[in-house]
């Protein structure tokens, strides 16, 4: 089956990815009050490669499984199926988490929740440095803590050491969180919507910081976002997720500039102004998408292509069979039947809403 193929082709395919997810799935078993259990298919058959010095953006609406993917990569969850590979070597189930987390760190979405309100900035950095290298002396740790703070543009670092989280702004907190993650000298930084809860005015600065860390210091980065404009601004590659599955991926200019999947097209077109970074709220971003109906249930996902109930191009085949992956060259790929039946041009031919208006209701109902 084509959907079980390996890691997506990438422009940097020749070198081994620092961190990769290979065909991973995560199913959550949830019980309701009566005791009946059902399975939430939060992520299914997802693959992504992170390379040193490159940023991969994961875009998708709420509930599409972005956080779950990040947490799989951070090993908060064991994958139900598939593998996480670090430097090409599969990470064994239940192997020591400490070694892994010296390489891979996750930045949470909410900078107000990821710093313990009872501890000063100093405590956070000091503990991280100490865990990283037990031989460091007190003075050395302090010197490095200041260095870390200045690396994330909190200058002078000395001034921030003795601050409590509540004395810092959201942006400053998120910088402290990043500094703390950098304290263990990781090779991979996973950002779960790291700027979405920050003030619009400082989002650009934070993106620049992430970009600098990746480009100048060679970190491999996963950047999760709902904001296409910020993805375009900072990343190298984009992966689009819909209802737990990856629908399209490739270099950002190809994916955002010439979407090869109706869902990507919808996202790009409903992004109000692609050049204004970080100014859209999640609600604006997905208002159009939601007008099309509820996102699908992940307990009983739609058959075939999961996007077909909302897709203006849907054919009867879309409801029956999962579309295979089509490689479009330059590492650009998409999972859509249109490519298989030679109707790929239609995606770019018209705007999404025009296509939607033309949609034949009888065909979708079938």
């Amino acid at each position, binding site marked *: 089956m084509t959907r079980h193929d390996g890691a997506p082709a990438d422009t940097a395919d020749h070198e081994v990815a620092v961190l990769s997810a290979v065909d991973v799935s995560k199913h959550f078993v949830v019980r309701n009050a009566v005791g009946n259990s059902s399975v939430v298919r939060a992520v299914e058959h997802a693959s992504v490669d992170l390379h040193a010095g490159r940023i991969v953006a994961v875009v998708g609406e709420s509930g599409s499984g972005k956080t779950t993917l990040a947490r799989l990569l951070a090993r*908060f969850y064991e994958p139900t199926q598939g593998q996480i590979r670090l430097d090409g070597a599969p990470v064994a189930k239940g192997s020591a988490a400490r070694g892994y987390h010296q390489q891979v760190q996750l930045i*949470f979405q909410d900078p107000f929740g*990821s710093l313990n309100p*009872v501890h000063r900035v100093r405590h956070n950095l000091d503990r991280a440095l100490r865990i990283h290298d037990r031989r460091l002396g007190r003075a050395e740790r302090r010197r490095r803590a200041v260095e870390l703070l200045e690396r994330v543009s909190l200058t002078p670092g000395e001034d921030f050491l003795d601050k409590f989280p509540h004395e810092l702004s959201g942006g400053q907190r998120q910088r402290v969180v990043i500094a703390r993650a950098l304290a*263990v000298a990781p090779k991979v930084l996973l950002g779960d919507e790291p700027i979405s809860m920050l003030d619009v005015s400082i989002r650009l600065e934070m993106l620049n910081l992430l970009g600098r860390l990746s480009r100048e210091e060679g970190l491999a980065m996963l950047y999760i976002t709902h904001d296409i404009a910020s993805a375009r601004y900072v990343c190298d590659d984009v992966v689009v997720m819909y209802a737990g599955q990856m629908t399209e991926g490739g270099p950002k200019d190809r994916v955002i500039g010439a979407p090869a999947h109706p869902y990507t097209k919808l996202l790009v077109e409903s992004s109000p102004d692609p050049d204004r970074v970080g100014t859209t709220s999640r609600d604006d971003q997905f208002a159009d998408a*939601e007008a099309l109906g509820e996102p699908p249930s992940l307990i009983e996902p739609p058959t075939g292509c999961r996007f077909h109930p909302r897709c203006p191009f849907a054919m009867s085949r879309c409801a029956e069979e999962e579309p295979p992956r089509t490689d479009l060259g330059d590492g650009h790929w998409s999972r859509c039947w249109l490519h298989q039946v030679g109707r790929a041009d239609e995606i770019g031919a018209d705007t999404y809403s025009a296509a939607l208006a033309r949609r034949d209701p009888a065909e979708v109902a079938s």
Partner: protein
Amino acid sequence: MNSSFGSNPKVRFGLVVVTFFAALAILGPWLTGTVMGIDPRANDISAIASPPSSEHWLGTTQFGQDVLAQLIAGARGSMFVGVLAALIGTVLAIVFGVTAGYFGGRTDHVLNFVTNIFMVMPVLPLIFIVSGYLRGTGLWMIAIIIGVFGWAGGARTLRAQTMSVRNRDFVLAMRMLGESNPRLIGSEVLPHLGGWVASMFLSAMIGAILAEAGLAFLGISDSGAISWGSMIQAAQSQSAVLRGLWWWFVPPGLCIALIGTAAAMLNFGVDELSNPKLRSATRKVVRRTRRVERAVAAETRTA
């Protein structure tokens, strides 16, 4: 959390009462010995069962002992039992509750099972039986018995609170950095339970004082030790009520009632503490509400 706990007037009343008796307990020997110059155990043959006077402010007992001196010495005995029992109970509650809540899974199953056993155990009969075996072992043993049998409720509370803290982002973040479990518990989770632990300790202390008084009244106590309960018990055995020796049993009774009131007040504070705060609306809720609003607006426009 801590500040709101301390700023509640009811709680403050409870704290003042407890602090007052704690001070009385600590300064007891100095007050009776140096300030008053009276040994609470000494029998003054010249004043037997005499009502309050300038010499004996709260009168004397059937045995010619000064009631005020006994009351102060009794505060020491009662507070000793209270503090020791609360210490034991709180430590056990933390060990069982926090460990169960933090680790979850099998550990939780086992610890929660033990907690539930202690929860439903008929404590009073058990205390009777145990103290029957240990007759005459003093306040020490009473405190240990009360502490060992009285931690289950607190463990329950702490378990639930720990479960709500253990998966907060800051705990996950520190775990991801490689922080060890004992450190995560001690340095990241426990500080957030501080208010709970403090209020639990106070309630447990007061509960233990009342329990000790009750046990002493029922005759389970060390005859040599002085506590409020043993004072009332002695008064009772000498039919002080029938003979109208009110100054003998009213002061310790009042002290116990005051401590009981303080317990109730502190519990009000704990209730207010545990009331679920208005949770910040999640994005999903907000979005759903907006969607409904949009739908309603569309409806009204078409109508």
